[in-house]
């Protein structure tokens, strides 16, 4: 059992280091099922609001699931600390919740939004809501993420999140805008999360306002870029025509 656990966990652990996910298949959907590692970590997340991002949560989860104590060793097969494992699993788990919410036809409020940027704002706020139960442990969690050894993995997770948000908001950019949009969303998310840490208003009202403001700035930036592009194309064409007319005059 332990051996299959390790084999399965490796497939979860060794993600490619590029910061975007690869090809998403439409028809090839049967996967190998949940690994032992993710079972334990999912259970551990239930203890995070009480104990924080601490290896105690993992120990508790293993006890709760009636697994042998030695299984705690499969959690850090890739050399990262159990605390970081827990934080990064929590991040991808929350991302999954957000994705399910966006896909769910029941989430009427989200599907009634038609503007792409409103949808981005909605998804960011939805994601920040998931921080609320563990908000007092979040500072410690973030400090785990920015340890130099972990930073590539945390950046990857952040970009996966912004890629998800952009995709479910209905982004259809095919050129460089694809990159700038995702970068913008990542920036908004990180700043809003830092804002949320110090936010004392009831129900995090100020954070939500902050997100809305940032997203509308971002929208302004996008349309400014498009305007400049259109303006330069117009000028380039008129320049060519001017040169042509001068040549004809001789």
């Amino acid at each position, binding site marked *: 059992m332990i051996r299959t656990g390790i084999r399965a966990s490796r497939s979860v652990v060794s993600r*490619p280091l590029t910061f*975007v*996910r*690869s*090809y*998403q*298949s*439409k*028809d*090839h*959907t*049967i*996967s*190998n099922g949940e690994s032992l590692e993710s079972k334990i970590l999912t259970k551990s997340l239930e203890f995070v609001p009480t104990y924080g991002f601490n290896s105690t949560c993992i120990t508790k989860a293993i006890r709760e699931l009636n697994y042998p104590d030695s299984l705690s060793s499969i959690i850090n097969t890739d050399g990262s600390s159990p605390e970081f494992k827990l934080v990064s699993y929590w991040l991808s788990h929350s991302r999954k919740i957000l994705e399910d919410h966006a896909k769910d036809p029941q989430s009427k409020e989200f599907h009634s939004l038609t503007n792409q940027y409103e949808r981005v704002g909605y998804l960011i706020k939805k994601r920040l809501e998931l921080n609320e139960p563990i908000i007092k442990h979040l500072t410690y969690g973030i400090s785990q993420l920015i340890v130099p050894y972990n930073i590539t993995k945390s950046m990857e997770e952040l970009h996966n999140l912004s*890629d998800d948000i952009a*995709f479910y908001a209905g*982004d*259809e*950019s*095919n*050129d*460089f805008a*694809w*990159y700038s949009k995702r970068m913008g969303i990542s920036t908004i998310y990180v700043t809003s999360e830092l804002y949320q840490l110090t936010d004392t208003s009831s129900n995090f009202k100020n954070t939500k306002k902050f997100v809305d403001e940032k997203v509308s700035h971002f929208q302004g930036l996008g349309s400014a870029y498009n305007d400049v592009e259109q303006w330069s194309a117009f000028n380039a064409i008129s320049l060519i025509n001017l040169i042509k007319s001068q040549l004809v005059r001789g």
Partner: protein
Amino acid sequence: MSMISKSRVGTQLAKCSRSFTTSHCRFAKKSKKSSDSSDDLEEVVKKYHGENVTYGELSKAQKAYLDRVIRVDQAGELGANYIYMGQYSVLANKYPHLKPVLQHMWDQEIHHHNTFNKLQTQRRVRPSLLTPLWKIGAIGLGASTALIGKEAAMACTVAVETVIGGHYNQQLRVLMNQYDSPIYDKETGEKLAESDTNKEIETSPEIEDLKQTIKTFRDQELEHLDTAIQHDAEKAVPYIVLTEGIKLVCRAAIWTAERV
């Protein structure tokens, strides 16, 4: 005696599953099974088609290759689109008889470009990071060869379409040979034996569609190649230098667009 006949049935079965005559195969299997138990008949005749099967997950390497295919094809079609845009803007008014020819080829390239754009967003593949460079480079290549003359523009088309056609063929070869994945019954979730599959369900509609798209596009690109040769491409003055130089540039661009 009975031993011999049994082995003969066995080889016949193997032959059947290798060649795709599934109807024969099913018949042979039915007759064999009926001697064991006549109740299983219904299960044996079950015909699998697109609706009642699902496919196993693609491997990491298979996904990575599809990722590259879509990225490079999108960038390539963007390039082709912009090359024709450059050619058209220079040549269309100078040579009215070339206008419909160029327009036809350009329209097809726009369709190809849109198709891959759609695939890129649906399959969540990242576009090439150098997209702005491809745009400028392609429009520059199209316009500059057209400025040399219409023969040079056609020689440029010859070079580009030769490389693209070859590249599409290479992709088709990989998609044809390397994309067998396990097939499962949709209701029971059981993996199908090799003898139960048929040609119709061998590859998932996803891969099959991609192959058909690439095939159609390749044929259209090669049509453009013929058109260019009919319109005096070979009369361009340093024909060999021009075509070989552009081919080299295209190969370098393909190599880069796959990776960056």
